[in-house]
């Protein structure tokens, strides 16, 4: 295992200390229970927006705490959803009287831990709404399964909901926007290599030099299918077509195209992917009016990419363009 870490059990706390040293102007880090919170939280009259999930997906979620995006983020152990006490304390810390939105990625663990936070109560009358993201078209959806995973759309939902909250919209409105983003977005990912969970010490799966996994999530879980390595253009098509089909996106739609790196993929490759994804969108008559290219929702050092398409209208575009000032995403401020 080649990693720039000390002891596996210390990775998350040491990362949090690094974040505290680096971004003390934007965020405060709370330990035991662990959460990252906006330096100026709580903001009176503003809906608090929080998220959480296992660590190892940086900059998500901790890197998205700050003006115009999240009010707090709860990091669990690597790839392990955080515990209810973290969500409870973070909820209290960001509550400005207008309620708190929980953005939860659809994983059994995340959903149950957020639910338990609500069940355990103790949030003293704070109104909480939870929106569960589930945009991964690689997973067949069904009433009888855990359903689709929440992946790339979560980044966009956090940005857009955060902007809506910043405009002092009500909890219901912010939650509705968040649900809308989730409903109008689809994603799919692939991996060239596995990641190594620090405490496991070896790759979660072994992938021969000439093969790739299609339909992977963000926890190093194997994908739906394994196949021979293909060209960037072919891979992009294999990700874009199911994404476009599923919503479905229709000719004339405006879209935000998000090409994401899994952590070990250099930017040069993401632009090669973006090029083809853009061309495929155009071919379908879709207009890419906004985009995001970079490693924003990662899976430790996994090499690979995921593509997210979000259908946007004017309101969503305006919220996307609104100022954001976080360690991981910043513009207009």
């Amino acid at each position: 295992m080649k990693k720039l870490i000390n002891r596996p059990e210390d990775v998350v706390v040491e990362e949090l200390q690094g974040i505290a040293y680096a971004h003390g102007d934007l965020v405060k880090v709370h330990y035991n229970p662990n959460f990252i919170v906006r330096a100026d939280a709580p903001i009176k009259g503003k809906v608090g927006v929080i998220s959480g999930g296992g660590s190892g997906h940086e900059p998500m979620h901790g890197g998205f705490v700050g003006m115009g995006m999240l009010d707090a983020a709860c990091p669990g152990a690597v790839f392990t959803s955080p515990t209810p006490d973290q969500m409870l304390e973070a909820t209290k810390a960001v509550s400005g009287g207008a309620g708190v939105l929980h953005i939860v990625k659809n994983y059994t663990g995340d959903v149950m831990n957020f639910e338990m936070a609500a069940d355990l109560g103790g949030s003293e009358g704070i109104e909480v709404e939870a929106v569960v993201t589930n945009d991964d078209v690689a997973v067949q959806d069904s009433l009888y399964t855990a359903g689709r995973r929440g992946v790339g759309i979560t980044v966009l939902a956090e940005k857009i909901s955060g902007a809506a909250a910043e405009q002092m919209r009500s909890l219901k409105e912010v939650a509705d926007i968040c649900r809308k983003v989730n409903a109008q977005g689809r994603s799919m990912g692939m991996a060239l290599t596995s990641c190594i969970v620090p405490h496991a010490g070896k790759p979660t799966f072994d992938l021969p030099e000439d093969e790739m996994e299609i339909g992977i999530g963000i926890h190093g879980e194997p994908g739906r299918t394994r196949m021979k390595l293909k060209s960037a253009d072919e891979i992009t098509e294999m990700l874009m077509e199911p994404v476009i089909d599923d919503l479905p996106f229709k000719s004339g739609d405006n879209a935000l195209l998000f090409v994401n790196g899994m952590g070990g993929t250099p930017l040069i490759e993401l632009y090669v992917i973006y090029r083809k994804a853009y061309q495929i969108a155009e071919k379908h008559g879709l207009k890419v009016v906004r985009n995001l290219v970079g490693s924003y929702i990662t899976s430790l050092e996994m090499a690979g990419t995921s593509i997210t398409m979000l259908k946007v209208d004017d309101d969503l575009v305006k919220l996307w363009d609104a100022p954001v000032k976080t360690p991981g995403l910043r513009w207009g401020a």
Partner: protein
Amino acid sequence: MPISRNDVLAWLKAVAQVLAENREYLVQLDSAIGDADHGANMDRGFQSIMGKMDEINDKDIGTIFKTAAMTLISTVGGASGPLYGTFFLQAGTKTAGKMELTIQEWAVVLEAALAGIVMRGKAELNDKTMVDALTPAVEALKKAVGDGKFQSEALAICAEAARQGMEATIPLVARKGRASYLGERSAGHQDPGATSSYLMLKTAAEIWKNA
């Protein structure tokens, strides 16, 4: 002899040790169809319970289980944290104030604890989860107790049923939890949560053999 407060403490201690020893194994099982953390999660949780031993050393079984539950809930995370947390929470509710349990009572406790997991996770039999180990185990224990088996034998029958349930997860296609994302590819692998459930019940059978 009934299962005493001390026996329950001894069981938790033994489970902590067994999970530590099987940490790698559970991580490996979770690597195949999940995210390679089940062993680390369970080990972290039970080591934390060990850190609470002083606090619960002289408490009733209900308090012991509730403390274990809250500790798991606040240190494990993932799917197994809330699930095993609820398991012990329900066990704690059923044993509030008790200083010992008959094998009959233990069967009732285990049934309630399992019901907690099902309530929380909504898994059905054959969804390839811990429920697949626990359900036959509870059934077998209830039957053994009804048949008037000795405590040690009843616990052994319970553990054996869990083992069979655990092994029966191998061919299943997962419909709950992270393994469900794999679809057909989840078949052929043993479920990690069913395995940790079996390990707990096997440990109970061993530790309480002479209780």
